[in-house]
């Protein structure tokens, strides 16, 4: 199939399925809370409602308006670079490093939304986002580089093929576990829901965002959740690889749902950490990962 067409399909897949995964997550959280919870399609309704609202511009800086669009765009660009059960549609366009850059770009857009709004809550949220960015991103980067060292390539497709063909080793296990913790933070789930912290700083960087802009930010967060789940499953749990490709895609989506349910369980049994505690925690993870990377380099 034409790889551009496939890329388009994958973007649509991310845009359309990400809110559903969010709905599943909300239902699980409600179950543990002994609540009935919102219907599965509630995130779609939320997005539709927000998209239909009038656009309020509460801060003069132009980036305040466009940060949401740019953030979502960055995340959707990663959608064509990552494997979701099959090879990345535009593999030649980018590897894990480009993926990291784009994820960082989305985080930077959240920071920009924070610093361009005239709200002290947003400013605190932005500073927290920067701190999280500086400590969580290295964890993701080192985990993926460990895998790249093992596979001898920085391309997602080759890492995936290598992992599918080999049994887990110490270094891949370390990389997998640390990446799992990092994606809990990337998905803004407890105990790392520090940037938004609605009881402390009222959604932080998003406090001034409303209407369509907020809808795009929400969509970006859902998409990010979906993409990290896809990356984790494809890179660390690619087995069993089944044919035809469409079946493998369905299996991957199922595995992603299970992964998100595990993230949901972590979410409901934890209170929010303080930013300094989270930073210390991730720095400790980096140390562990560097040990894992050393193992990968000596071939274990």
């Amino acid at each position, binding site marked *: 199939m034409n790889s551009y067409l496939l890329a388009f399909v994958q973007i649509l897949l991310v845009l359309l399925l990400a809110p559903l995964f969010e709905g599943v997550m909300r239902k699980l959280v409600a179950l543990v*809370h*002994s609540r009935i919870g919102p219907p599965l399609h509630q995130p779609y309704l939320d997005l539709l409602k927000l998209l239909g609202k009038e656009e309020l511009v509460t801060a003069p800086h132009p980036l305040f308006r466009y940060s949401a669009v740019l953030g979502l765009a960055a995340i959707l660009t990663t959608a064509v670079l990552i494997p979701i059960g099959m090879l990345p549609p535009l593999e030649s366009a980018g590897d894990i490093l480009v993926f990291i850059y784009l994820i960082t770009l989305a985080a930077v857009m959240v920071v920009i939304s924070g610093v361009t709004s005239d709200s002290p809550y947003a400013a*605190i949220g932005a500073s927290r986002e920067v701190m999280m960015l500086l400590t969580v991103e290295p964890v993701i980067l080192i985990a993926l580089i460990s895998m790249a060292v093992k596979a001898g390539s920085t391309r997602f497709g080759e890492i995936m093929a290598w992992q599918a063909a080999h049994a887990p080793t110490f270094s891949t296990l370390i990389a997998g576990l640390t990446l799992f913790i990092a994606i809990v933070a990337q998905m803004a789930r407890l105990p790392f829901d520090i940037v938004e912290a609605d009881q402390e700083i009222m959604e932080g960087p998003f406090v001034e965002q409303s209407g369509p802009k907020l809808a795009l930010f929400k969509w970006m967060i859902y998409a990010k959740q979906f993409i990290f789940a896809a990356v984790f499953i494809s890179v660390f749990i690619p087995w069993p690889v089944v044919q035809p490709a469409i079946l493998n895609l369905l299996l991957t989506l199922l595995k992603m749902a299970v992964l998100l349910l595990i993230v949901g369980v972590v979410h409901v*049994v*934890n209170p929010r*950490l*303080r*930013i300094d505690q989270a930073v210390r925690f991730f720095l400790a993870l980096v140390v562990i990962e560097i040990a894992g990377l050393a193992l990968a380099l000596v071939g274990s």
Partner: protein
Amino acid sequence: MHSTAYCQAVEKAAEIEVPARGRFIRVICLELERIQSHLLWLGIAGHIIGFDTVLMQAWRIREPVMWLCEKITGNRKLLGMNLVGGVRRDVPRGIHDELLEVLARVEKESTAVLAAIAGDITLKARCEKVGVISPEESIAFALLGPTARASGISIDIRVDHPYAAYPELGCEVMVEQGCDIWSRVLVRLRETLEAIRLVRDALRMMPDGPIMADMRQPIPPGRIGLSSVEAPRGETHHFVITGEEQRPYRWKARAPTFQNLQGIPVMVAGEYIADVPIGLGSMDPCFSCTERLETIDVRSGEVRTWSREELQALYRLRHGLKEPL
């Protein structure tokens, strides 16, 4: 709480003896309120640090207590049971079994919550050694109730100046030495269990007889009554001077929140922003109980306290009402 304190103050002023059954029913109502108040607080404290599972579960445990209050008194909260001289209605015999069954369930579930959160590392990381106020500072700022007891100060009106049926029932004062938010959590959870014990004992020991004193004599004017009640947040004091025609001539209530708020600057000094909401929440504030407004002019640093009359005048001015009240 407040109605008990007020009625007791008037009863003291007029030297009215409340019958034993009335006093026991007052204790049952007070302790049921304490149970639901502490569980409500636990939920909100959990919510403040993002732990919504605690919020939802604590409130689910609390709900049967609210239904019970409604069955006994007709109201979920603000039970409206007190009259000067006794209580409005009896606790019917038929409800005893249900009451005991609900209490057993609440006790079991509260114990389970206590066990679950006691082992939670993340929760402890947020609560231990945070919002610390030393025993000396607690005494200096005259902190009250669970906030003081969590700093190792053994004060409890139920024991220090027993009222209603507490002399017969006795009551263990729950004290923790940690001086931090975690200690405040433990004090309140242990008090919830003690409150369940008190309701059970009150039901068992409650004598038969009238629930109201003979109120045919008018209440004499010009008498002074002062009474204190241990509310869930700390001690509540009511002061009454009786007046003509069975009305109060003067009445003053003091709720514990205003006193407890004085400790907040010490608790949150030098802490992270994330610790301020839970530091404030850990003393279970009731801002509507504080009745005081201060404004600070940031340029001159001048502090001004507004009286109620000034606030009313300001309100009327803002709304174009020229007439002073």
